[in-house]
C-alpha cells in the first residue's frame, strides 16, 4: 500500500510507537521506584511481571515489537533525510532556529539503543536463562538483591546515568513532537507541551536517582 511508504505514515508510526514506549517508561519507573521505598514490594511486583502469562507472552512481545519498529523506522527516516541534502552547507546555524535535542534525535536515540543492549545484557538475558534454560525453582525474594548487586559497579552506574541524560533529551523533543506528527496542534498544545517537558525531565531524573541510590546504599 502506498500509504505505508509515505513520509507522513512513517512519522505517524514513529509517533505511535514512541508514545507506547513513553507509557512503558512510566510503568517501568513505577516498579523501579519501589526498590527505593520498599524492597518487598519491588520483589513481589517483579515476580508478578516475570511470571504473569499475559505480561510475559503478550505484553513483552508487543513491547519488543514497539522498540524494534521505533528504531527501524527511525534509522530508515534518517537515511532518507540524509539523502535529501547530499551537499552540506559550508555554514549552517541550526542553533538559531531549533534545539540541539530536536536536531539530534538520531544521536540520543542511538545512545538509548546502546543502553538497551547493556540493560538486556544485565537483566533480561540473565532472567531468560534463569527461568527458561536453567529452570530454577521459583524465588520471589531474589529480585532486589540481584538489582543491588548490579549497581555495585561505578562504571555501570555511570553508564546508566549517562544514558538517562540522553533519554531526557530524546523525550524533551520526541514526546511533544509525536502529537504534532499525528496532527494534534491546537489551543491545548501549549499545556500538553509543558506536561511532556515535565515528564521528559522527571522520569529520567527519577531513574538516575534510583541508580545512584542503589549504588551508594550497598
Amino acid at each position, binding site marked *: 500500500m502506498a*500509504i505505508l511508504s509515505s513520509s507522513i505514515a512513517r512519522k505517524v508510526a514513529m509517533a505511535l510507537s514512541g508514545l507506547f514506549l513513553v507509557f512503558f517508561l512510566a510503568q517501568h519507573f513505577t516498579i523501579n521506584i519501589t526498590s527505593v521505598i520498599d524492597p518487598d514490594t519491588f520483589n513481589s511486583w517483579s515476580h508478578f511481571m516475570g511470571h504473569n502469562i499475559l505480561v510475559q507472552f503478550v505484553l513483552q512481545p508487543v513491547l519488543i515489537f514497539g522498540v524494534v519498529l521505533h528504531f527501524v523506522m527511525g534509522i530508515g527516516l534518517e537515511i532518507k533525510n540524509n539523502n535529501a541534502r547530499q*551537499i552540506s552547507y*559550508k555554514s549552517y546555524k*541550526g542553533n538559531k532556529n*531549533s*534545539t540541539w535535542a530536536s536536531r539530534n534525535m538520531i544521536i540520543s536515540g542511538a545512545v538509548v539503543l546502546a543502553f538497551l543492549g547493556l540493560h538486556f545484557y544485565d537483566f533480561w538475558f540473565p532472567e531468560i536463562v534463569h527461568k527458561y534454560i536453567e529452570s530454577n525453582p521459583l524465588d520471589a525474594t531474589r529480585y532486589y538483591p540481584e538489582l543491588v548487586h548490579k549497581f555495585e559497579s561505578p562504571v555501570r552506574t555511570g553508564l546508566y546515568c549517562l544514558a538517562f541524560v540522553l533519554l531526557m533529551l530524546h523525550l524533551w*523533543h520526541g514526546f511533544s513532537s509525536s502529537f504534532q506528527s*499525528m496532527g494534534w496542534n491546537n489551543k491545548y498544545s501549549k499545556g500538553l507541551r509543558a506536561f511532556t517537558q515535565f515528564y521528559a525531565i522527571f522520569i529520567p531524573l527519577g531513574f538516575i536517582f534510583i541508580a545512584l541510590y542503589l549504588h551508594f546504599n550497598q
Partner: protein
Amino acid sequence: MKLTLKIWRQKNATTKGELKTYPIDGVEGDMSFLEMLDVLNEGLINKGEEPVVFDHDCREGICGSCSLQINGEPHGPDRLVTTCQLHMRMFNDGDTIVIEPFRAKAFPVIKDLVVDRSAFDRIQQAGGYISVNTSGNTVDANTIPVNKHDADESFNAATCIGCGACVAACKNASAMLFTSAKVSQFALLPQGRIEATERVLNMVAQMDKEGFGNCSNTGACEIECPKGISLENIARMNREYLSASLKG
C-alpha cells in the same frame, strides 16, 4: 562598510562548485542585500570577470524569487523578511558573510546561487487548486459563508510565497511547511473541501517523489519562513492525510 564575501561559485549543474572570496567596500547600511550584490557584480563586470548569478524579481518581498543561504540561515539573520528586504545594517563593518545557494537534492544548483525550485511547481500542480466552472456560470465565492477564523487561517496559509526557505532551513530538506500551507489554504474553505481527499494524497505523494526529506518537527522552517507560516499547517496536513488515507 567594508565586508568580505565568501560566495558559492558553480559554473553549471554538472560542475563542482566552491566558495570564492570577494572583498567589497563602500557598502551602506540602507542598501538591501541584493543591492550590495549588484554593487559587487558591477565591480566584477568592470574588471572583466563573470558576475555572480542570483535569483530575484520583485525586490518587494512578495514574489518568492530571491533565496540565498546567508551566514548559515535562509534569507539571512533577520526575521520575517526575504533576502531582497534584508538590509545591510544587519551586518557590521569588517564582517565576513558566507553566501550559498539553498541546498536540497530536490533543488539542484543551476549556476552559482540559483537553484531549480520547479519541484514546488510540480507539488502545486498535483493538487494545489480548486476546479471551478469558468464557462460563464461561475458562482461568486462570496455567496458561500466562511467563518472568520477559518478565513483568516486560510489567508495566512495562502501568504506562502514558495521561496523554499523552509526546505533550506530544515536539517532534512523537508518541504512539509510549503506543502502544508498549500493544502491548508484550500482545506479550510468550503470551496476546497470538494477535492480535499485527492488533493492531500496527491500533493504528499508528489512531495515524496521529488526527494524531499521527512519532517522532524524541529520548527526551523517556521522560524526562518519570511511569511511566518505556522507549524499548525503541518499538523493540519497530517490530519488531512490520515483522514484521506482512511477514506481512500
